[in-house]
Structure formats: C-alpha cells, structure tokens
C-alpha cells in the first residue's frame, strides 16, 4: 500500500482562505496559493480546497484560484464545493485540479458520480460524506437524507467513486479524535481509499485514524500554520507512522 497521507484542508470563499464557525461569520485568513505552497513545502501529501460558499457567481473566482494553485504547487489537489455537473468538474480539472469532491449534488442525483467517473476516471472522483450518528446529512450537515453512511459509501464506490472523504459531524470540531468506529465501518465496506475527517486534536488522534483509513484530512488542528504540519509529521514518525519523508 502507498504511504498514509496527510491532507490539509483549506476552506475558501471568494478566492481567499476563510475561517468561521459552521460556515458562518467567515473571516479572511490568507491567500490559498501561499498557504497551499507552504503546506506543500512542509510535507503535505495532497491538498483539499473546499469552496464553502460555492455560489454560481463565485465559480469564476474558484476556477481562477485553481489555475493559480496549479501554477505554483506540484502535489495533487482536490477541489470541492458546488460541483453539480460533469461540465463543472471538467472546468476545474482543465484549470489544473486533480480531483473533484462531490457531496450534496451526488446525494440529490447519485448518477452524477457515475457520469463523473465515466468521463474523468475514478481517480478524479472523491465522494464526500458528512455523517451524524452513522447517517448521511447533506447541505453542509443541515439536511437529513435517510441514508446510512456505510450504504451510501458502498453505492458511491459502485458508481465509480475513487475515494471516500468521510467527515463525522459528531467528532468535527471536538478535537477529541476521529470517529474511528464510523471510519472503520466505512473502510470495511468499500475497497477504495478512505480519507478520515473531523475531530483531530493531536498526533495520537491522527495516528489512530491512519490505522483504519488511508489518509487523514487536517483542518482546524493546523490553525493555518504550515509549521504545525511539519511538527505533526515528526510526532507521527515518532509514533511509528510511516509518513512520507522527503
């Protein structure tokens, strides 16, 4: 198996990195290209840029941002937020993204996953799942879907998803560790890589997540600070996690 991956997640809106509570009260905390490049230098294995507003008006800005990131950064990156059609995804990949993440749009119309996989290849299609109590929620966690996370992950894989990005709403923001039970259940249900997300507070949490998942998404634990990523990698190595060394 390839090495376990550490993936910093940058929330963006209007072409800037933003920070807020539950997508509200957004504050501008920097330039996504500069921060992404600094994370890359600090040893990030991949990056995720998540457009937290994902408005139709903001599409141009997002595509332009992807173009700037691709000019500067030579590691893979995923872009999520507002991808509703193959055309949306093609535009982002054409600008230099390697993968797109879909969430609510795929829940509303699961055939979208099949269409994306067919035209872009499975390796470019990440299905993001937000789960609370093992059940899937959509629209940034605000709406029930009536689906079990494990079942939806399995369906997404069957439709050609190349990765499952699994966020536990229960664990998210607690800094008390990833939801290992849910992550293990989903990882056992699918044959694709699984990216664990939500709840990281320290290196032990990340190490535990990488025991059951193939990658860990890192958001608030990094505080938009690339040095924190570098020290975290050192801590993980001391815990026996074989993160990338160069």
């Amino acid at each position, binding site marked *: 198996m390839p*090495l376990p*991956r550490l993936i910093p997640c940058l929330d963006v809106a209007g072409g800037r990195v933003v920070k807020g509570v539950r997508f509200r009260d957004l504050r501008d905390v920097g330039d996504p290209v500069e921060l992404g490049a600094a994370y890359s230098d600090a040893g990030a294995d991949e990056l995720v840029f998540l457009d937290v507003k994902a408005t139709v008006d903001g599409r141009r800005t997002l595509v332009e941002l992807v173009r700037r990131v*691709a000019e500067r950064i030579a590691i893979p990156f995923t872009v999520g937020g507002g991808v509703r059609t193959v055309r949306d995804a093609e535009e982002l*990949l054409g600008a*230099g993204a390697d993968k797109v993440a879909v969430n609510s749009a795929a829940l509303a119309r699961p055939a979208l996953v099949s269409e994306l996989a067919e*035209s872009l*290849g*499975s*390796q470019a299609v990440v299905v993001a799942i937000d789960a609370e109590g093992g059940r899937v929620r959509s629209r940034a966690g605000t709406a029930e879907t009536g689906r079990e996370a494990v079942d939806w992950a399995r369906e997404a894989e069957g439709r050609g998803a190349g990765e499952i990005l699994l966020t536990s709403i229960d664990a998210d923001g607690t800094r008390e560790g990833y939801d290992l039970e849910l992550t293990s259940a989903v990882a056992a249900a699918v044959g*694709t890589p699984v990216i664990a997300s939500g709840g990281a507070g320290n290196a032990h949490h990340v190490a535990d997540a990488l025991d059951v998942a193939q990658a860990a998404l890192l958001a608030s634990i990094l505080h938009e600070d690339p040095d924190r990523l570098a020290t975290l990698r050192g801590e993980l190595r001391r815990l026996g996690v074989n993160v990338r060394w160069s």
Partner: protein
Amino acid sequence: MNVAICEYGAGNLRSVAVAFERLGARLTDDVESADLAVLPGVGSARAAMTGLRVRGHEEALRKRFDDERPILGICLGLQLALDWTEEDGGVAGLALVPGNAERIKEGRVPRMGWAEVGDSGPFYFAHSYAAKTAAATAWSEGLVAEVRHGSFVGVQFHPEKSGVTGARFLAEEMRCLSLA
C-alpha cells in the same frame, strides 16, 4: 527543448504543462516534430484512445516511434502505449510496447498515494490498472512503475505531481534527451 503534450480530452493537462515549463521547456502543438512528445494520463482508456485518434495524435505518435524519437507516457499514457488494456471492458492500445494493462487485484483500488519506485522516490501514484510487460524497468510494491522500449519511456506515477522528487526525475529525463 520543444515539448508537445498530446491533448485528448477532459482532465488535468495543465499540471504536466506547468512542470515542463518550470524546467525551461517550450510547449508546442506539433506532436510529430517536437523534441519530446508527452502522452499524459487523464481520464479513461476508451475516451483517451478515441481522443487521440480524432486529434490525429495516434498517427503522429506511431510515426515518432518508428523514427525512434522520444515519447514519454505518464500513468494512463503508459498503459495506452501497450497492446491492450482491460479497462472499460477491453480497449486496444497503440501497441508501441508489447504487453497489457490489467486491473490491480491487491490492496485498495484506485492505488492512490506516494510510494517508492525501486529505491528512489517516493512518487505519487493514482491508478486502478497496472502494466504487465517484458519492457518493465522499475517496480513499485510489485507493480510495474516504469517501462522503456525503443524511444518510448513510460511511468506509472505522476512526476508532475510528485513535488521536487518528480521535478528531479523529469529534469534527468530531459537532460538524457538533450545529450542523445
């Protein structure tokens, strides 16, 4: 050095272009006469072969290969150079390199992430199929990671996405070509 990147449909070709530009290459559309033609790795096999055909790249690549002029295949670009791939229910390739691509049977698929190639790297991989060929020159975790046959060099990993390690690999390939 003039580098032509064979476009054949949707996907991230931008990163490959940027990687060569960073190394001082000039990009050209002329697949047949560029110093190096790059067959990148995006999308699915069937769509890619159709895309190559309709854009006239298939012919240009064959001519290059017959004239022993360098071609670099990346990821799916390596697999397209083989006789056949199991992907999409079976697709005939360019048959520049003897061998087939078969679905990966072990571990999580797609095989996604950083892994060593021989004792160098790590490089970034993202693939569900792997080459089976006598032209293999390097492996990663038991899977073919590099093939060399005539003027064709193929890599299963993405040098353009492998940070400084990948840039070093591309620079070395370009250096070898300019000496040749």
